Every structure is written in C-alpha cells, then in structure tokens.
C-alpha cells in the first residue's frame, strides 16, 4: 500500500509536503493490521470489533483478535474479503492480495490447529 508520510519538514517546522508517488510495495502483516484492523479490534473502550466479539463469545474466546488461537489465516482472509455484520469487506485498493496474505498470517500467528 502506497502511503506518503511527511516528506519535507521546512526549517520553520510548519509545513509538510508529499513526495512523488512511491513505488508500490506490499506492507508487512503488522503494518497492514495497524492500518486497517486496530481501530476496531484493539483492547479497551471504543473498539467495536472487540465489543462485538465479547458479546458473541461471552468470554469463551478472546475478544481481542490478536489473542485468538483458533483463527486460521484462511479464516482471517475470508473475513477481510467478505465482511461480517457491520464490518464491510475490504477492497483490493485497500488491502492488496499480497497484503491480505501478510495480514492473515500475522493475525493467525497464534493459530493452533485443532
């Protein structure tokens, strides 16, 4: 995912300009997770994904996604591309196929096959 962060901080410290377009390079699984998943699936107040999973499982499974041990990479990838309830699917302009593979592996890092 191309992303332009501050490219030029002028001496006055007051203005930033963007670079020219960066070459496309897939982000790491962790970076994709931070960009797209943390806003709903982190621990604590104000995380609708966590709240939803807490209600769904009632504590039988962890509500925070990264604490789950039952989610395979395939399952994660399916949820990203199909959505569930109020979570919409993510398009390839948001999460490319390469990034999907990376983020699915990242979320499934604790996956223990039954």
């Amino acid at each position, binding site marked *: 995912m191309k992303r332009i*962060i501050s490219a030029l901080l002028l001496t006055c410290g*007051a203005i*930033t300009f963007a670079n020219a377009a960066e070459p496309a390079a897939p982000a790491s699984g962790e970076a994709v997770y931070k960009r797209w998943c943390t806003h709903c699936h982190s621990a604590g107040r104000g995380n609708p994904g966590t709240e939803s999973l807490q209600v769904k499982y009632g504590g039988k499974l962890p509500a925070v996604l990264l604490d789950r041990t039952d989610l395979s990479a395939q399952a994660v990838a399916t949820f990203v591309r199909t959505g569930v309830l109020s979570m919409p699917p993510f398009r390839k302009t948001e999460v490319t196929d390469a990034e999907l593979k990376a983020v699915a592996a990242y979320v499934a890092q604790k996956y223990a096959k039954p």
Partner: protein
Amino acid sequence: MATPPNVSSADFNRAIAAWKQTVGADWVFTAPEDVALYRDAYSPYWGEPEERVASGAVAPSTVEQVQAVVRTANQYKIPLYAISTGRNLAYGGSAPVYSGSVVLDLKRMNRVLEVNERNAYALVEPGVNYFDLYEHITKAGLDVWIDPPDPGWGSVIGNALDGGGGWTASPFRDHFGAHCGMEVVLANGEIVRTGMGALPNSKSWQHNRWGFGPWVDGLFRQGNYGVVTKMGFHLMPRPECMQTLTVRAPRDEDLIPLVDTLNLVENQHVVNGSTSLGGGQPGAGGPAGPAGWSVTMPIYGPEKVVRAQAEYVKEKFAKIAGSTFTEGELIRTPLDAAALARVRKTSFGIPDLSTFGLLGRNAANPSPPGGHVDFSPILPRTGEAVLEFMRLYREKLPELSENGALRILGPVFMTNWDRTMVALLMFPIGRDPQMNGRMRNAFRKWVELCAERGWGEYRAPAVFQDDVAKVYSYNNHALRRFRETIKDAVDPNGILSPGRYGVWPKHLRKS
C-alpha cells in the same frame, strides 16, 4: 463478466484494455469476486434485483490517469461512479447509484500533499482518510487539529463532498464549508482548479476560497459534474482547552427558551463546540417523572477565555426558571494518557470508529442485522420544531416501526450545524429481503411525512436519493431541471456518476 447498460461487449473490452494500459492490469477489476467487493455492505436491496451493483472498477493513482480513464469512458459512453475511499456506509458505501456503472476507485490517490501549520490548512487527495491525515500531522509534530466525523476511515474529501460533519469546533466541523479550493477533472478530461487555484502559480489556493468570478465549488458537492482529485481544508490550530457545559430544564415548554438561548450563544460564537440536545424520549425519566431536556455545549479556546465564556453562558441560561447548570471538567490539550482514555476522541480531533459499536453487535443489541441506513431530515433550530417532530414521531411510530418490530433507532437531535438540526433516525439493514423491504417502506414514508412539514434530508442513501430529490420540487422541480441543464452541458454523454443525488443525464431521465 458483467457489461454496463447499453454498452457492447466489444466496446467494454476495448475500454478495459485502454484502462489497463493507463493504470496497469492489476488495478482494473472485472472478475466477479473483485467487483463484489464494491457492493454496498449496508444495501437495503442486498441480494435483490434492485441492488445497485457495479460492472467493474478501475483505480487510477494520479490525476493524469484519472483524465485518461475519463476520456476512455467518454469514448465508449461507459458510466463511471467515482468513490474516494468507498466508506460512505449508511449512505451507499462504494456501490454506484446507477447499476452497471464502472466504479472509479480513487483510494490509491492517497497523498497528503501539504499541511501548513502557519496558515492552518491541508491539501489532500481523495484516497486520504482521517486516520491518514491525523497520522501525517502527528508524525510531523504540527500543532493543528483535523475535524473527524464518526467514521475515521472515511475520505476527507469524500466526506466533505457528501455533506458530512465532525465533532470539534465551528466552522471546521462543516466539512464542505471548511474546504478551500479544489481540483476537478471534468467529463471531457480537462482539469479545472477552483477559487484562487485558477491563477497559475497561485500563492493562496488554500487561503481564499472565493477567487474571482462565479464560485463553482458547490456544483461538486453531492454533484456529478466532475471528479474531484484534490481539495484544500482549513484546520483548527490546537485549542488550549475544552470545557463542556450542560443545562437541564424539566418541562417541555422549557425547550423553546432552551434552544433559543443555545442558538444565541452559538450564533454569538461564544459556544463553538458541537452541541447536543437530549431528552424528550418516550418513557425517559422513570419514576421521578419526565427527564426533561438538556443541552451540552463544548467550548474550545484559551483557558482564560473559555472560563469567561462559560460564565457568560451560565448567565444567559439562568433566565430559564428551574434550569440547572453544570460545568464539566476543563480538559487541557495536548491530552495526557489519562484524559485520552476517558474523552470522546473525535471531540479532540482524533479519528476513531467507536460509533460503529453503538450500531453493531453490543450488549444492548446482541443480534443486530448487520448494517443500517440513516434518515437525516434538517429541521430549523427551534424548540417548536423539536416538539412538532416528537409529536409526529409518537403519532406515527406505532405504524411505521410496526410497533417497535423494526427497531428504528432515534430520533437523535443533532445540533452539529448552526441554525439547524438533524432529527436522525437509523434504520437497521441486514440480509433478509423481507425485513429490508419493510425498512424501505418505512424510510420512504418518513421522507414524505417530513416533506409535508417542510423538512428535507441533507443527504440520503444512494437507493433513496431519487425519493429525496423528488420532494425538493418548488416551482415544478425548477432546481432539478437547472441541475439537469448543467449536467447536459458539462457531461453530454452522461458518464459521470449518473443519478447521484437525483441528477440523471438526458438519456436516463424518467419522464
């Protein structure tokens, strides 16, 4: 592979080949599983023949690519539907208004082009969302705030163009009102820069929004006359603190002076935060009696000034007999960790998605259908209008909510904008066509009921935009006809977002 209406397979294939040349094969989507990602996840017609679906998608990353894509569409008369980040959920998401359109997905145009702290503005591309802009500003250490709406993943440009608003101070939370200058690709592929941006080498494109001559930016708000590829926004210098004041009044008749006083202190710019009106809910209050009404009023600014403004506000509301006045905590910025943990982030310029928790699965609603659509009529900012809306609501609710079976949420009287309020109702939407059909009927009935009383929506889900546009009918739909005249002039082939907000090109107009 689906084909756009009235376009031959051969022409569509030629256009796809041209688009692949323009943006790269990876960024043209025609496979059903890829195109399905553009469905509106909260569509009130999900899975039904009337669901608005795309026939493909093309995703340019530069303005030059947008120009080329649009020219190709014009050559083959293929309808495009432009989206910024495609997160206009509850109002249509990333799906086109006109089924079979090719989505022009601008998400890859994701550059924050400039943030200027000294004059407090930003210039961004359509794919930049609120999280992006916040992160850019934070990493650069700039002392300016953005104004986030509820969906932090929404496009800064897209939200403004759809008429969205946020939660910090006026005038920044009217997102279109806070914009300053835009760059637009017209249907013929030509680039226009508005306001001061029309001056080559302009030094004040994001400083002065008016420029010289007739101002045209409004044509692109909820419009389909061009594709906006850059837009400037004024930002708020970080305020020293924020304090919320609350006034409660026990009786329905108190509502009228309560709202009048609220209007006075807002229109004087003494209160500049996003106020809210509470109360009046059926059954509220419990055994102690009616809960009455309340207004909450955040004030942003230097601490000395905020304290003086709070005193003034207290004096003004003291004239309402029986009212009580409460000063909330004065919260200084930048927020420390403890404050960050207890405040509503969006009120402090920090984007999040917490509102989706209220509407998704939660302890109070463990089995929601999934999505929702918003009904957003604009009311004048008077207590009489609130009471009239509540009377209508109580009278019609049993019929229109099927005695509560539809679980319509609201009304929430949103006083985000000066002089008006939105009486927001939220309609749950899921995957059950029968239930969705009942929601649609109720939604359309509310459009009619409000129009009969002179209340019109400021925004509507894509599938209801014709219904809403229809009630703006003064002088035999003169405004709609004027918009159509412009549409025919600037987009004679009708390729740009046909039907968006009720404006259709000539060949698709219904009699």
